[in-house]
Protein backbone atom coordinates (compact mmCIF):
# COMPACT_ATOMS: atom_id res chain seq x y z
CA UNK A 1 0.00 0.00 0.00
CA UNK A 2 2.86 2.40 0.79
CA UNK A 3 4.37 3.90 -2.37
CA UNK A 4 6.86 6.61 -1.41
CA UNK A 5 5.95 9.32 -3.91
CA UNK A 6 2.28 8.45 -4.44
CA UNK A 7 -0.37 11.17 -4.58
CA UNK A 8 -3.60 10.57 -2.66
CA UNK A 9 -6.61 12.28 -4.23
CA UNK A 10 -9.67 12.38 -1.95
CA UNK A 11 -13.04 12.61 -3.71
CA UNK A 12 -15.91 13.78 -1.49
CA UNK A 13 -18.42 15.40 -3.87
CA UNK A 14 -21.16 13.79 -5.94
CA UNK A 15 -21.65 13.98 -9.71
CA UNK A 16 -23.75 16.90 -11.02
CA UNK A 17 -23.98 18.77 -7.69
CA UNK A 18 -20.86 20.81 -8.40
CA UNK A 19 -17.68 20.62 -10.44
CA UNK A 20 -15.55 19.40 -7.52
CA UNK A 21 -15.77 15.77 -8.60
CA UNK A 22 -14.80 16.38 -12.21
CA UNK A 23 -11.96 18.75 -11.38
CA UNK A 24 -10.70 16.34 -8.69
CA UNK A 25 -10.62 13.47 -11.19
CA UNK A 26 -8.89 15.74 -13.73
CA UNK A 27 -6.10 16.42 -11.23
CA UNK A 28 -5.74 12.67 -10.63
CA UNK A 29 -5.56 11.94 -14.38
CA UNK A 30 -2.96 14.64 -15.02
CA UNK A 31 -0.77 13.43 -12.15
CA UNK A 32 -0.98 9.88 -13.53
CA UNK A 33 -0.17 11.13 -17.05
CA UNK A 34 2.97 12.73 -15.58
CA UNK A 35 3.97 9.31 -14.27
CA UNK A 36 3.16 9.85 -10.60
CA UNK A 37 1.49 6.92 -8.79
CA UNK A 38 -2.03 8.03 -7.90
CA UNK A 39 -4.43 6.53 -5.37
CA UNK A 40 -8.04 7.57 -4.90
CA UNK A 41 -10.08 7.62 -1.70
CA UNK A 42 -13.85 8.09 -2.02
CA UNK A 43 -15.66 9.46 1.03
CA UNK A 44 -19.28 10.55 1.61
CA UNK A 45 -21.15 11.78 -1.43
CA UNK A 46 -18.03 11.12 -3.51
CA UNK A 47 -18.98 7.44 -3.41
CA UNK A 48 -21.87 8.27 -5.74
CA UNK A 49 -19.34 8.77 -8.55
CA UNK A 50 -18.91 4.98 -8.49
CA UNK A 51 -22.59 4.00 -8.88
CA UNK A 52 -22.66 1.78 -11.94
CA UNK A 53 -26.18 2.63 -13.06
CA UNK A 54 -25.56 6.35 -13.66
CA UNK A 55 -27.51 7.24 -16.80
CA UNK A 56 -27.23 10.11 -19.22
CA UNK A 57 -30.01 11.92 -17.36
CA UNK A 58 -31.04 15.30 -18.61
CA UNK A 59 -29.71 16.43 -21.99
CA UNK A 60 -26.46 18.37 -21.90
CA UNK A 61 -25.29 17.02 -18.55
CA UNK A 62 -21.96 15.30 -18.93
CA UNK A 63 -21.77 11.88 -17.31
CA UNK A 64 -19.02 10.90 -14.86
CA UNK A 65 -18.90 7.18 -15.52
CA UNK A 66 -16.73 7.41 -18.69
CA UNK A 67 -14.08 9.23 -16.62
CA UNK A 68 -14.23 6.55 -13.91
CA UNK A 69 -13.80 3.89 -16.61
CA UNK A 70 -10.78 5.81 -17.90
CA UNK A 71 -8.88 5.59 -14.60
CA UNK A 72 -7.57 2.10 -15.29
CA UNK A 73 -6.07 3.20 -18.62
CA UNK A 74 -4.07 5.76 -16.67
CA UNK A 75 -2.86 3.06 -14.26
CA UNK A 76 -4.97 4.45 -11.42
CA UNK A 77 -6.00 1.12 -9.97
CA UNK A 78 -6.33 1.80 -6.28
CA UNK A 79 -9.85 3.06 -5.56
CA UNK A 80 -10.54 3.00 -1.83
CA UNK A 81 -14.07 3.44 -0.53
CA UNK A 82 -14.77 4.27 3.09
CA UNK A 83 -16.67 1.24 4.40
CA UNK A 84 -18.47 3.10 7.17
CA UNK A 85 -19.72 5.79 4.83
CA UNK A 86 -20.81 3.23 2.22
CA UNK A 87 -22.91 1.59 4.92
CA UNK A 88 -24.31 4.83 6.28
CA UNK A 89 -25.40 5.76 2.74
CA UNK A 90 -27.17 2.37 2.60
CA UNK A 91 -25.26 1.35 -0.49
CA UNK A 92 -23.75 -2.06 -1.18
CA UNK A 93 -20.58 -2.85 -3.12
CA UNK A 94 -22.84 -4.55 -5.68
CA UNK A 95 -24.17 -1.17 -6.75
CA UNK A 96 -20.65 0.15 -7.45
CA UNK A 97 -18.38 -0.30 -10.48
CA UNK A 98 -15.83 -3.12 -10.32
CA UNK A 99 -12.37 -2.74 -8.88
CA UNK A 100 -13.02 -0.79 -5.70
CA UNK A 101 -11.46 -1.74 -2.34
CA UNK A 102 -13.29 -1.17 0.93
CA UNK A 103 -11.28 0.45 3.68
CA UNK A 104 -12.29 0.34 7.34
CA UNK A 105 -12.78 3.75 8.94
CA UNK A 106 -9.98 3.25 11.44
CA UNK A 107 -7.49 2.68 8.60
CA UNK A 108 -8.13 6.07 6.99
CA UNK A 109 -5.75 8.06 9.25
CA UNK A 110 -2.97 5.60 8.42
CA UNK A 111 -3.67 6.02 4.71
CA UNK A 112 -3.32 9.78 5.08
CA UNK A 113 0.05 9.43 6.86
CA UNK A 114 1.45 7.07 4.21
CA UNK A 115 1.04 9.50 1.34
CA UNK A 116 3.58 12.29 0.97
CA UNK A 117 1.17 14.42 -1.03
CA UNK A 118 -2.59 14.73 -0.74
CA UNK A 119 -5.15 16.71 -2.75
CA UNK A 120 -8.60 16.93 -1.19
CA UNK A 121 -11.60 17.53 -3.45
Amino acid sequence: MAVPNALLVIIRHAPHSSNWLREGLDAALVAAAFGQPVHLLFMGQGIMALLKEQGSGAPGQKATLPTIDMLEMYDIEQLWVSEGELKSMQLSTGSLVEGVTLIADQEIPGLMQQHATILNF
Partner: protein
Amino acid sequence: MILHILTKAPDSRAATQMQQALGNQDSVLLIEEAVTAALNPAWAAWQKYRSRIFLLSEDLTSRGLTHIAAKHQLPTMDVDDFVALTEQYEKTVTWY
Protein backbone atom coordinates in the same frame (compact mmCIF):
# COMPACT_ATOMS: atom_id res chain seq x y z
CA MET B 1 -50.51 26.12 -0.13
CA ILE B 2 -46.86 26.07 -1.13
CA LEU B 3 -44.76 23.80 -3.31
CA HIS B 4 -41.34 23.38 -1.70
CA ILE B 5 -38.41 22.49 -3.94
CA LEU B 6 -35.43 20.96 -2.13
CA THR B 7 -32.10 20.82 -3.99
CA LYS B 8 -29.83 19.55 -1.22
CA ALA B 9 -29.42 16.17 0.50
CA PRO B 10 -31.75 15.04 3.32
CA ASP B 11 -28.98 15.59 5.92
CA SER B 12 -28.39 19.21 4.83
CA ARG B 13 -29.38 22.36 6.70
CA ALA B 14 -31.62 23.26 3.75
CA ALA B 15 -33.59 20.03 4.30
CA THR B 16 -34.02 20.74 8.02
CA GLN B 17 -35.16 24.29 7.38
CA MET B 18 -37.60 23.20 4.68
CA GLN B 19 -39.24 20.79 7.11
CA GLN B 20 -39.65 23.59 9.66
CA ALA B 21 -41.46 25.71 7.07
CA LEU B 22 -43.72 22.98 5.68
CA GLY B 23 -47.46 23.53 6.11
CA ASN B 24 -50.13 20.82 6.34
CA GLN B 25 -51.22 21.25 2.76
CA ASP B 26 -47.84 21.88 1.17
CA SER B 27 -46.05 19.50 -1.17
CA VAL B 28 -42.36 18.78 -1.72
CA LEU B 29 -40.35 18.07 -4.85
CA LEU B 30 -36.83 16.68 -4.42
CA ILE B 31 -34.45 17.68 -7.24
CA GLU B 32 -30.68 17.68 -7.89
CA GLU B 33 -28.76 16.44 -4.82
CA ALA B 34 -32.02 15.99 -2.89
CA VAL B 35 -32.80 12.86 -4.90
CA THR B 36 -30.25 11.04 -2.74
CA ALA B 37 -33.23 10.76 -0.36
CA ALA B 38 -34.04 7.68 -2.49
CA LEU B 39 -31.26 5.86 -0.63
CA ASN B 40 -32.95 6.28 2.72
CA PRO B 41 -36.61 5.19 2.90
CA ALA B 42 -36.33 5.68 6.69
CA TRP B 43 -35.88 9.45 6.25
CA ALA B 44 -38.59 10.89 8.51
CA ALA B 45 -40.02 13.08 5.73
CA TRP B 46 -41.03 10.01 3.68
CA GLN B 47 -43.46 8.90 6.38
CA LYS B 48 -44.49 12.30 7.61
CA TYR B 49 -45.43 13.79 4.24
CA ARG B 50 -46.63 10.63 2.51
CA SER B 51 -48.44 11.29 -0.77
CA ARG B 52 -47.09 14.82 -1.08
CA ILE B 53 -43.35 14.32 -1.54
CA PHE B 54 -41.80 13.36 -4.91
CA LEU B 55 -38.46 12.64 -6.58
CA LEU B 56 -37.54 14.16 -9.96
CA SER B 57 -36.93 11.18 -12.25
CA GLU B 58 -34.37 12.80 -14.60
CA ASP B 59 -32.13 13.60 -11.63
CA LEU B 60 -32.50 10.05 -10.30
CA THR B 61 -31.43 8.64 -13.66
CA SER B 62 -28.33 10.78 -14.05
CA ARG B 63 -27.22 9.80 -10.53
CA GLY B 64 -27.87 6.07 -10.99
CA LEU B 65 -30.63 5.94 -8.35
CA THR B 66 -33.67 4.98 -10.46
CA HIS B 67 -33.70 1.31 -9.43
CA ILE B 68 -33.12 2.09 -5.77
CA ALA B 69 -36.08 4.51 -5.78
CA ALA B 70 -38.25 1.86 -7.47
CA LYS B 71 -37.14 -0.84 -5.03
CA HIS B 72 -38.16 1.40 -2.13
CA GLN B 73 -41.44 2.23 -3.93
CA LEU B 74 -40.87 5.96 -3.69
CA PRO B 75 -42.99 8.29 -5.85
CA THR B 76 -41.25 9.95 -8.80
CA MET B 77 -42.29 12.50 -11.41
CA ASP B 78 -40.65 13.89 -14.54
CA VAL B 79 -40.12 17.52 -15.48
CA ASP B 80 -43.54 17.76 -17.21
CA ASP B 81 -45.22 16.60 -14.01
CA PHE B 82 -43.07 19.18 -12.19
CA VAL B 83 -44.59 21.95 -14.33
CA ALA B 84 -48.07 20.50 -13.79
CA LEU B 85 -47.43 20.61 -10.04
CA THR B 86 -46.48 24.29 -10.20
CA GLU B 87 -49.78 24.95 -12.00
CA GLN B 88 -51.58 23.73 -8.89
CA TYR B 89 -49.53 25.69 -6.34
CA GLU B 90 -49.58 29.47 -6.45
CA LYS B 91 -46.33 29.78 -4.51
CA THR B 92 -43.10 27.82 -4.67
CA VAL B 93 -40.11 28.16 -2.36
CA THR B 94 -36.71 26.68 -3.20
CA TRP B 95 -34.40 25.42 -0.42
CA TYR B 96 -30.72 25.19 -1.34
